[in-house]
């Protein structure tokens, strides 16, 4: 029986295209300060820090956690860096969980972020591709996602209009989120008419690139109960990796996510996720992904993603609100993004999501993906103690 771990505070910075008033460590400090304030503790109460950021090429500094050490509060504390691509925000959160679950630490600060504006984002993203086997053809992130989307939409007959609804819904939800970058009032037609990036992905189907950071405070049972009136208990975590390329890979079938979700559901006794979860924050960097992930998470039958979004079931008024925060389509720092999903999930069950609060939310799931659309993380939090 694993030790109980809860989140007792969170913080995030408002995501924008570029911050010129701070450097990367400065962004990190903002998120940390916000989380400490939210939890009502000071750096003296923190036993260990865990840091995450995505490819070093974004800020152009190797071992950025060393550079950000002062700003993350790591002075004379244990600290190390996670980096798992797009999932890094979540793997860092999961790492924070394990810091406490191991019994080694009582209060742990997890902080993630990136300052994408320091360099050329898509150029830097193209360094993900192997230099010998694919970099010449790399076109940043959209190319890989377009391959996934084409396969999925062809396999299940999901239309571009349906995926456009995702883009509309997310940006509309973002208008309730003071931290989101793209708070847009757009229509399906606007999306369909927006310039193509990598067919079928169009400009308005794509996430922005943001500067930002997020932080979470994890605590053991004793500290959580002492410090927080309504902590978000971590009920399950999982991080599964597929391979980037394997012979029988079907890009429409995210088997790593299906496995991670199943493991987490089993651990929580969730047999009907659509009913038993109150809200889901998933990592939709591009609009078709909301539907693919929703299916893999069992929120609807395989191939029914298009109908899910059409029906309004995933809207704030629906029975399984997805991305009240506006999701990744509305803000994407890459480094903090998957952690922001966890932060938002925690805020929901802690009753702290303000305008974007889903009434009475008690069970929330946070998802992240990364790499060659191969790493998937799932974290389930609840106001119900395990």
């Amino acid at each position, binding site marked *: 029986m694993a030790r109980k771990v809860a989140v007792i505070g969170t913080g995030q910075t408002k995501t924008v295209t570029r911050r010129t008033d*701070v*450097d990367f460590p400065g962004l990190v400090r903002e998120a940390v300060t916000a989380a400490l304030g939210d939890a009502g503790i000071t750096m003296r109460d923190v036993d260990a820090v865990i840091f995450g950021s995505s490819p070093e*090429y974004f800020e152009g500094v190797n071992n950025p956690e060393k550079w950000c050490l002062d700003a993350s509060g790591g002075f004379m504390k244990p600290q190390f860096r996670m980096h798992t691509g797009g999932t890094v925000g979540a793997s860092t959160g999961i790492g924070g969980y394990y810091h406490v679950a191991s019994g080694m630490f009582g209060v742990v600060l997890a902080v993630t972020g990136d300052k994408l504006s*320091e*360099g050329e984002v898509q150029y830097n993203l193209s360094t993900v591709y192997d230099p010998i086997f694919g970099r010449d053809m790399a076109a940043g992130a959209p190319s890989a996602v377009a391959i996934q989307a084409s396969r999925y939409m062809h396999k299940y007959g999901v239309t571009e209009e349906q995926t456009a609804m995702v883009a509309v819904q997310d940006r509309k939800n973002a208008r309730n989120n003071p931290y989101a970058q793209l708070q847009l009032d757009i229509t399906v037609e606007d999306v369909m008419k927006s310039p193509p990036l990598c067919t079928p992905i169009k400009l308005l189907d794509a996430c922005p690139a943001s500067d930002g950071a997020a932080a979470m405070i994890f605590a053991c049972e004793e500290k959580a109960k002492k410090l927080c009136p309504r902590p978000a208990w971590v009920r399950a975590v999982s991080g599964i990796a597929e391979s980037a390329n394997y012979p029988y890979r079907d890009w429409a079938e995210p088997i790593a996510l299906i496995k991670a979700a199943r493991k987490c559901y089993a651990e929580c006794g969730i047999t009907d996720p659509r009913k038993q979860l109150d809200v889901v924050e998933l990592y939709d960097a591009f609009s078709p992904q909301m539907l693919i992930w929703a299916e893999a998470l069992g929120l609807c039958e395989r191939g029914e993603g298009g109908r899910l979004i059409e029906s309004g079931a995933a809207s704030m008024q629906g029975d399984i609100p997805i991305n009240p925060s506006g999701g990744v389509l509305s803000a994407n720092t890459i480094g903090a993004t998957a952690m922001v999903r966890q932060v938002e999930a925690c805020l929901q069950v802690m009753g702290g999501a303000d305008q974007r609060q889903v009434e009475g939310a008690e069970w929330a799931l946070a998802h992240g993906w990364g790499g060659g659309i191969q790493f998937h993380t799932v974290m389930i939090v609840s106001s119900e103690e395990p």
Partner: protein
Amino acid sequence: MKMSDRKYGVMKGSIGDAPYNWTTGGTAGRLLAEFRDKRRFVGFRCPACGKVYVPARDICGECYEDLEEEPVKVGPQGEVVSFTIIREANPESPAEVPYALGVVRMDGADTGIVALLLADEKDIGVGMRVVPVWREERTGHMSDLRGFAPV
């Protein structure tokens, strides 16, 4: 105090082919502006422990506090706290090898800045007193400081 009230700067650079526009943050930006406009060093103090940082990076890492907004005077001289003579360079070396690097603590500061030492190898030692030497053309960049020379 608000981060956005601080003076800031941007530094252009590259790693291989990849271009960068690094933001410097408030106190670093201010120091670089002093390099460019006043040819001098300033320090920033931690309100909690009183340590004066040169070069400053917005916070005192030991106390986890924002540094004071108003810079404090340091220098004009400093002391070599440590040094080395570089004979094997890397792609980013600031000079042809061999060259001397030193950690120099300006009078009035509690920390040192790493910069070139403009002196003969045989004359360099810990404790040596030095003054900054500035370039004629300055842009608000670390290289505005040619290095430190013996007093």
